[in-house]
């Protein structure tokens, strides 16, 4: 029954994506529907394709700072069982320049992703086992699931109520964001027994469904991580788009920041960009 419900949601989402419509929360929506609105926004599933330049800044407790820059492209297909294909390549620092990954994600949320990795040290595109959902994303405090692989069906949800967001001061630019915005406060409980967290919260902005903030709790109920996201409306269709994603590990004091720049939607990217042979054409 649960699977059928999610299948319906996926079909609904596919319909919305084809129409290019940005979903928004509406009065009377169930908590699962609200979460699905956020799922569409997080992965910009209403767009056909997406490219951006990314900066990943890693700051440890001693304030030592490392920075990675990359290029990302994604195409949303939703056909032949494939949900989307994603390509990420590092452009700096020189030590990791040329490392690239290609990921194919399936419509079936139970089906593990396909992944290839191009390593300049081997000059080879090598199929890899996809990283575990709880593994760190590129050495950051984010998990793979938080940035790339999350599906609504991975958790069960409870609507706590509507609350005013207290605001968040960004480590990246020092600005305080979204103080006083009305948000749906939702609690999410993982279905997987093996996950590190017991629950997490989603602060979904009431006006547009964007998730502003998340708090993640360990098995003892202690909050150990927070995630903040800022947004801008991008492109002629005014797609709500994540600009800054900021994560703090409250146990270690580590901070990770992803900044998306030069974002472009719906450029008519060809599917063959997201192929293994294209990965094998890497120069570096």
């Amino acid at each position, binding site marked *: 029954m649960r699977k059928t419900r999610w299948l319906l949601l996926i079909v609904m989402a596919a319909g919305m994506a084809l129409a290019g419509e940005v979903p928004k929360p509406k009065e009377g929506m169930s908590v699962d529907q609200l979460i699905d609105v956020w799922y569409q926004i997080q992965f910009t599933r209403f767009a056909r394709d997406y490219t951006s330049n990314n900066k990943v800044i*890693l700051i*440890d407790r001693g304030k*030592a700072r*490392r*920075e990675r820059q990359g290029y990302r492209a994604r195409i949303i297909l939703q056909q032949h069982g494939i949900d989307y294909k994603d390509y990420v390549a590092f*452009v*700096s*620092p*020189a*030590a990791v*320049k040329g490392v690239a990954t290609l990921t194919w994600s*399936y419509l079936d949320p*139970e*089906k*593990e*992703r*396909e*992944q290839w990795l191009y390593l*300049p*040290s*081997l*000059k*080879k595109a*090598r*199929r*890899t*086992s*996809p*990283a*575990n959902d*709880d*593994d*760190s994303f*590129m*050495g*950051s*405090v984010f998990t793979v699931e938080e940035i790339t692989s999350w599906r609504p069906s991975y958790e069960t949800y409870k609507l706590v109520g509507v609350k005013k967001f207290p605001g968040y001061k960004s480590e990246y630019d020092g600005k305080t964001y979204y103080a006083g915005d009305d948000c749906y406060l939702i609690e999410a409980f993982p279905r997987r027994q093996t996950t590190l967290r017991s629950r997490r919260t989603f602060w979904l902005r009431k006006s547009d469904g964007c998730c502003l903030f998340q708090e993640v709790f360990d098995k003892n109920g202690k909050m150990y991580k927070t995630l903040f996201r800022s947004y801008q409306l991008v492109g002629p269709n005014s797609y709500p788009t994540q600009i800054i994603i900021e994560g703090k590990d409250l146990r270690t004091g*580590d901070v990770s920041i992803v900044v998306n720049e030069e974002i472009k939607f719906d450029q008519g990217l*060809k*599917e*063959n960009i997201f*192929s*293994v*042979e294209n990965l*094998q*054409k890497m*120069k*570096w």
Partner: protein
Amino acid sequence: MRKVSFALVLLTLAFSAAALEKDKLTLSTYFNAEFGFHLNEPDQLMKKYTSLQLKGTFDFTREVSLYFNLKKYYDFVYDVAGQYKNGSAKTATNAGNLWLREIFLDYQHQPFFLRAGRQQVVWGTADGVRLLDCINPADNRYANLDDAAEYRIPLWMLRFEFTPITDGNLQFLLIPDHEPNFNAGYGDVFVYRVANRPPPVLPPWVTYQIVDNLPADGFDDPDFAVRWQQVLNGWEYSLNYKYGREFYPSVTVRQIPFPPPAPPTPWTLQLTRNYQRTQVIGASFTKAINTGRLSGLTIRGECTYTLDKPYPTGADGNATGNTTQNTFAYVLGLDKYLFTDLLASVQFIQYINQDDQVASGHLLHPATLAPINKVENMATVKLSKDFLNERLKSEVLAVFGGNGDWRVSPRVSYEVNDRLTIYGGLHYFAGRANTLFGEFEKSSMIYTGATLAF
């Protein structure tokens, strides 16, 4: 020389154009210093290596781009370590134009792609075992302990690709360039047993002559190769064919004239190296298991059937003849993340020869001159795990030969900042002196180094 001139013209063009359009040029520089010491005698130096590498790209247009990779290195060990001072010092620096690692022009116009220039082309799915990875020869002077992209010798070639369907690709390679493997010489640090013997001491009336019959470069009798690759229902597979030459020589020894005259009439002992025509027919596959209890497991494999692969023949350590065999080899590998972020990778490799005995003697391994069996097995195990937000990386690779020989190579690296990485590790070899890993037992090495990239 003409090729190097062509490369220099391309580089000049790119840098001249870059003066006008700087945003189309990207450049990265890598400086590496590494010290290696004998594991059993840590005060004895084995490696004092310094390299400077410049990589760059220039986009002439959306469809045409240039890539270059220039690397110059020097290993001071031959200047400072008494043990190696009498060696051939072949390992000391880049020979010939090997400093010009890669330079090629890309032209992309869907569904066509052309890459012309000096380059590496990598086939196959195996790690560290070169079956289908047969397009480029190898620089074996550091016993293939460094990265594959560094030990492959790039070749001048044309790579043409046609993509008639999404996720299906036909590749054609035309290779007018022939380079043999490059091995360390007698007295160097990592010397295969076949070369680890001093030149023969001959009476004064005998001249020793080496003739290297390297095939002529050019389009008269080039190598070529074809590959079809496709991803179909989650299965990635390739079908491969190469018409080429073996990268190691078949050696014949002749006395000229024969029979040699009585002393003191002079005569010549001539050693001739020929590079045998071979054909490689191969295939590879990978499959990631997406559902069920084995979800997250990646299975991969490749196989080759080589026609006319050359082997020396004779007795252990003493090659007296040559033969060719049709041989079959395959690799099966499994990869999986365990305990969230511990990547485990295992491979089983098997080589199957037609016969282990021929009329001229026992089949011998080309590198060790040890008798080889009709079926030879190998296995590899690799574990890797990152710590401190991927700042500290660790891995251990173990390779088991089929004759009781093995090698284990643990390594750690630490990213000090965006530019500087320091690393250290060891390569421990064990086994009988006539085995692939045992021959380096006395060359087990502990090493440390740093790479500065900017």
